[in-house]
């Protein structure tokens, strides 16, 4: 059966902060290099599943100098983080819209996070990867929906999902079992019931409320970097502690103490430090606003496809000329056709 101690989740996917930062850095650098080399960062999936950078190498461009000046700006690591965060929230919303069980959105978000440890956001389109992650997570969590159903539900092309499936699996190194904090949460609550019954007659009602509140906290924790840094048990307890601050259902300190007494492997102090770290991470991270994301998204589009940048520049020029035209029509000058740029 599923045992965390022997799982790949524990072996490969719990990292330290330095490791995390390093991986993001590597992916980002690689994408920037590709941008300089090929002019575009996007990676395309071929028929046989191999990945290719389709942009043309800049040295062979005829108007090479022009290209250099209009090279799109790559995303910084922080911007990448914001984009990722936005799409992770989107995953949660999509899963809620489909009324999937809770664990599916957790698994999908984790897949998404893990995938973007290997690859940069500029290289694979986050929207496609998001859909593929949801699809895969449904498969893994034994709640299969066909790609067509998924496509119909959100009006997206199911072929995109199927094309990217293998890429995502490879990006995850085929480590597909994910431990979400929800079951650990239930486990700790059961334990808490026994503990509480021993001391006073706090009603089960209060514990139920605590459970619901803690689930909300877990949802927000999942959106941060924490699942890659801490184990699900720690996340669950931290969420319980945070929820308890408001609900006041149980004396958390005493419960933690009794837990540590029963399992002497963990010390009270270490656990508290961990929970503090988790809390600070959660408090510090914020959900990006739509307005902030618009410029980043545009940048991303240009990185992936610099052709769009030139097109939009042309369009801007057209618009400017049109507005000039309109204003000049009122006067009788004949300078209208002065611009030779309508060579599309």
């Amino acid at each position, binding site marked *: 059966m599923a045992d965390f101690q022997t799982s790949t989740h524990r072996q490969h996917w719990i990292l330290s902060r330095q490791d995390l930062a390093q991986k993001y850095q590597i992916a980002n650098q690689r994408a920037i290099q590709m941008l300089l080399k090929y002019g575009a960062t996007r990676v395309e999936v071929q028929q046989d599943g191999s990945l290719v950078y389709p942009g043309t190498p800049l040295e062979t461009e005829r108007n090479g100098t022009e290209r250099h000046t209009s090279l799109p700006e790559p995303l910084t690591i922080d911007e990448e983080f914001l984009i990722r965060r936005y799409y992770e929230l989107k995953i949660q919303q999509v899963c809620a819209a489909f009324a999937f069980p809770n664990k599916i959105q957790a698994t999908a978000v984790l897949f998404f996070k893990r995938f973007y440890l290997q690859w940069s956001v500029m290289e694979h389109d986050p929207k496609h990867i998001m859909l593929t992650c949801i699809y895969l997570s449904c498969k893994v969590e034994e709640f299969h929906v066909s790609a067509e159903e998924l496509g119909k539900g959100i009006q997206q092309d199911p072929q995109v999902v199927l094309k990217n499936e293998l890429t995502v699996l490879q990006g995850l190194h085929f480590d597909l079992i994910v431990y979400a904090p929800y079951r*650990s949460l239930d486990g700790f609550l059961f334990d808490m019931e026994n503990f509480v019954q021993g001391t006073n007659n706090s009603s089960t009602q209060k514990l139920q409320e605590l459970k619901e509140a803690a689930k909300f906290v877990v949802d927000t924790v999942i959106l941060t970097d924490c699942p890659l840094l801490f184990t699900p048990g720690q996340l669950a307890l931290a969420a319980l502690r945070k929820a308890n601050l408001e609900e006041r259902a149980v004396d958390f300190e005493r419960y933690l103490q009794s837990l540590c007494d029963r399992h002497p492997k*963990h010390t009270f102090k270490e*656990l508290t430090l961990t929970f503090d770290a988790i809390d600070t991470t959660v408090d510090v991270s914020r959900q990006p606003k739509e307005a902030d994301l618009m410029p980043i998204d545009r940048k991303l589009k240009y990185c992936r496809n610099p052709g769009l940048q030139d097109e939009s520049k042309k369009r801007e020029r057209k618009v400017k000329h049109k507005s000039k035209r309109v204003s000049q029509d009122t006067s009788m000058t004949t300078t209208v056709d002065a611009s030779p740029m309508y060579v599309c």
Partner: protein
Amino acid sequence: MNKEVSIRRQIASLHPAHVGAGLRILGFTESSSEWKLHEYNKREDDFPSLRAYNDYLEEVEDIIINLVEGVDVQATKDKVAKYQEENAEQIVASRARKAEEQAAALRQENGFPEIKVSNGEQVALQAAPSGQYAPALLPGGLYMQPRPAGSGPQPVPVGGPFNNDSVPEDEEARRVRIERAARAGGWTADIVRKRALQEALGSLWVN
């Protein structure tokens, strides 16, 4: 194509043996063409040899092709009418035979539901056609007797105690039923607790 189909139907009403045999080769049962049986029946065993039977079939195909293509339509129709007359007696005899077979099959089919009722008492009362297994005689037992297969085209599916909605199910009964079903599979509520607890305590530490 539709024209050919309708012509084949008409011919089949006259020459249903052809349809039946063709379908037999394809593995269909004759039940689909039963309703087409009007006139007469000629089967393989009616013919002295395989060659003769094949000749007959070829004749039928010729007729059909002629009618479909509109070649010599009148002559073909005359041929068909003549054939009908010649074999009128045959038609009647074969038809009777076919009807008899059908009735026998239906009887056997109907024989099943009487015995397969899941109500234990009825099973016990129905004393014996031979071949009953002992468990089937237990009152209150839900066993169905296994019968040798192939004696009827299809066994009638019987759903168990809730087949007829004589007792309207409310929420409570439904929940009880689901829980009973889960427990029959070895599940207990305790398993959920144990698993959650194991995962919680096991995943608290990396090292």
